[in-house]
């Protein structure tokens, strides 16, 4: 029997038949795969053929919370969207903060499984354990902010919501799922999968309390964790003051900001779009997700120029990089505006920015005919940036439609796929693997395509003085441990940003005292390793091979031109074989039988 931390039930909704079923959370799966990303992927392994078309009726979506969600464990409100991703067909898990996850859990469900396809647009109303599939014709076409407002109006002002925007409705492969109109599960095109099922959103309202296994021990673990976080530079004060954009100047200083579609690793005028400048010119106040002491969310406005009066949230570090640095744009207000637009359309702002950067690169190289684009699309042109986001979001023109499919399809269309700075078709984020070697291995091996938050080696490579960011040595082990820890952490429902302060020991304590499932730091990481290998198995079955574990050629062939990492390139081969070996995988990157037996998942191969 589950002893604490879980609501205990799974909601299964089939949109083709309209059937609604309630099932029990499996105790053995909770123990082995925790919740969230782990449990959600386990469901996908059981129920979905990894070869299905991501946008077909056969694909499923799992909306997942974790055992620490709806408690006062720090930063514990994460909600995850697990599916076969639209962007690349790999196992997708994108997560978000906000208050939807906790609300869903208190409505009685740890997980929601969405199957089939509705005949016309619908949304779900999950109200204190009861479930309705409702007509969404008045919601379809609305941007995420309005969709959130209308759903709250139709259901309950205090409901938590999940919604897709116009970008997803038109099946953009880089569309996200937004929560409460302003927070997003951004990557891998999860929004398009919802749209393919005609599901505009979900509103949830709960009344059920969540209990934990050992109240006294849990309270002790929580306050210990909160105390540790309050003493860390980022989670204690920096996160609230500057938010994630505080990284702009830090990463630029080490020459690790991929600039102008990665033609360089240093952006001369990065300080004009830094966290400090954002705080000075645009920040109104900060916002916290559920139970989060860090509160890194940026509530911002534009105070001058042609977008004066616009307001919203963000941008975070990643969109500042993607829409700013990657496009060579250093006009902060335009970057902020471009970020607002991505949010409203429901576009992944990392992929959106990196795709525009790719388009600028192709355009300047003369590979995009001028007649295809209604304006000059050059690096550094801040007006072109905003116009390109609108084209991408509206998808009215052929070029807009192309942009909305991400950089890989765009570059492939024009005959130069090597211009796409992506791995497994997903654009890599704001850290340059030429300057910070380990993150390249993380990009190459991340199970959802290039990504920094599956294994944030930056925490060690940039912030730990004992780790040399420019060496390849030891990076295989570093990447593996970060990936395994994160897989477990993501499954509990705690935010990655807690790991600036918390280590496996504290996380295991929170998990064990909440659930009563015995777990020390070693076992916690082992659970993560199990989840990582399970995701790998899904991808292998989906047709991915070691050929897909690679970085864009540009990173190996074109050295960084300026800044602290001038002359550096990224050589993945100096890390990848060692990584496979450490993982217990064969030379083709396939998990060996003995590794799977050790992890107890040999039946999933």
């Amino acid at each position: 029997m589950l002893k604490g931390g879980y609501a205990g039930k799974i909601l299964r909704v089939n949109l083709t038949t309209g059937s609604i079923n309630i099932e029990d959370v499996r105790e053995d799966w909770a123990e082995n795969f925790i919740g969230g990303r782990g449990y959600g992927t386990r469901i996908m392994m059981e129920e979905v053929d990894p070869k299905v078309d991501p946008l077909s009726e056969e694909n499923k979506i799992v909306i997942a919370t974790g055992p620490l969600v709806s408690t006062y464990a720090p930063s514990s409100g994460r909600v995850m969207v697990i599916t076969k991703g639209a962007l690349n067909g790999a196992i997708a898990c994108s997560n978000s903060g906000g208050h939807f996850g906790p609300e869903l859990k208190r409505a009685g469900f740890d997980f929601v499984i969405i199957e089939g396809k509705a005949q016309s647009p619908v949304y779900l109303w999950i109200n204190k354990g009861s479930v309705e599939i409702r007509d969404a014709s008045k919601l379809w076409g609305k941007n995420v902010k309005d969709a959130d407002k209308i759903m709250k109006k139709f259901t309950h002002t205090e409901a938590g919501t999940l919604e897709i925007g116009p970008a997803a409705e038109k099946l953009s492969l880089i569309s996200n799922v937004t929560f409460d109109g302003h927070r997003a599960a951004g990557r891998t095109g999860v929004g398009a999968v919802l749209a393919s099922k005609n599901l505009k959103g979900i509103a949830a309202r709960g009344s059920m309390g969540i209990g934990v296994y050992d109240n006294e021990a849990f309270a002790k673990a929580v306050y210990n964790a909160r105390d540790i976080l309050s003493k860390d530079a980022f989670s204690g004060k920096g996160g609230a003051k500057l938010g994630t954009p505080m990284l702009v100047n830090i990463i630029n200083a080490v020459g690790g900001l991929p600039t102008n579609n990665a033609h360089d690793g240093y952006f001369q005028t990065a300080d004009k779009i830094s966290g400090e400048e954002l705080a000075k010119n645009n920040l109104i106040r900060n916002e916290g997700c559920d139970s989060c002491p860090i509160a890194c969310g940026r509530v911002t406005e534009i105070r001058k120029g042609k977008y004066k009066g616009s307001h919203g949230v963000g941008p975070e570090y990643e969109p500042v990089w993607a829409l700013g640095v990657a496009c060579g744009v250093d006009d902060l207000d335009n970057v902020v505006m471009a970020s607002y637009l991505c949010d409203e359309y429901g576009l992944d702002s990392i992929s959106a920015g990196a795709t525009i950067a790719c388009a600028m690169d192709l355009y300047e190289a003369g590979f995009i005919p001028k007649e295809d684009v209604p304006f000059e699309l050059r690096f550094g042109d801040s007006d072109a940036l905003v116009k390109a986001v609108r084209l991408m979001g509206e998808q009215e023109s052929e070029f807009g439609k192309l942009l909305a499919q991400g950089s890989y399809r765009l570059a492939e269309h024009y005959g130069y796929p090597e211009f796409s700075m992506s791995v497994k078709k997903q654009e890599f984020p704001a850290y340059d693997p030429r300057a910070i070697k380990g993150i390249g291995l993380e990009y190459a091996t991340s199970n959802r395509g290039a990504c920094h938050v599956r294994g944030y080696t930056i925490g060690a490579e940039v912030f730990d003085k004992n780790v040399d960011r420019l060496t390849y040595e030891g990076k295989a082990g570093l990447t593996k441990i970060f990936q395994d820890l994160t897989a477990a952490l993501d499954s509990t429902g705690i935010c990655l940003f807690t790991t600036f302060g918390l280590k496996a020991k504290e996380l295991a304590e929170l998990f064990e005292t909440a659930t009563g499932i015995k777990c020390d730091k070693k076992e916690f990481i082992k659970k993560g390793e199990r989840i990582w290998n399970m995701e790998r198995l899904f991808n292998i079955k989906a047709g991915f091979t070691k050929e897909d574990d690679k970085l864009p050629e540009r990173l190996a062939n074109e050295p960084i031109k300026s800044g602290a990492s001038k002359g550096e390139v990224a050589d993945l081969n100096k890390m990848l074989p060692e990584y496979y070996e450490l993982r217990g995988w064969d030379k083709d990157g396939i998990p060996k039988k003995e590794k799977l037996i050790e992890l107890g998942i040999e039946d999933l191969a």
Partner: protein
Amino acid sequence: MKLLVVNIDKCTGCRACEYACSFVHTGMFNPLDSSIKVSEFLDDFVFVPSVCTQCEEAYCVSVCPTHALTKNTQTGVVEFDSSKCIGCKQCVIACPWGSIKLNHTGKEIIKCDLCGGEPECVKVCHAKALEFVDAEDMVLDKKHRNAVKYKQLIVEQQGVG
């Protein structure tokens, strides 16, 4: 006398206070069973916590037919004795601020007891949007902060010393 003071401009809307309150009083994490409530205004991203201010002439006390609610003149707390409560809900109707409320079952009363002098909501609030402070000190602090502005004017006009 200490007051539970809300600094609205500091609230980040994380609602850890709601969890802390329900957990310490009921053993479960359920915002519906919390005395403190954070109202969220997403159009402007403003978050406003509301708390029971322990009225001197409390309506909830006045209307309670069984004296389940009483004002403790020593501690200042409006105390609730559930063993005397008949569930008439008059207190819930009478309170102008919604500070006394029904729990998630709609049958039991939730009343802030300031956790016996160490409010859990204050303890968990990293942003310091909630403070439990001496009322006189708080007022003095406000007066002082205002006075600093006048002091500055004088310094600017007349110079230092």
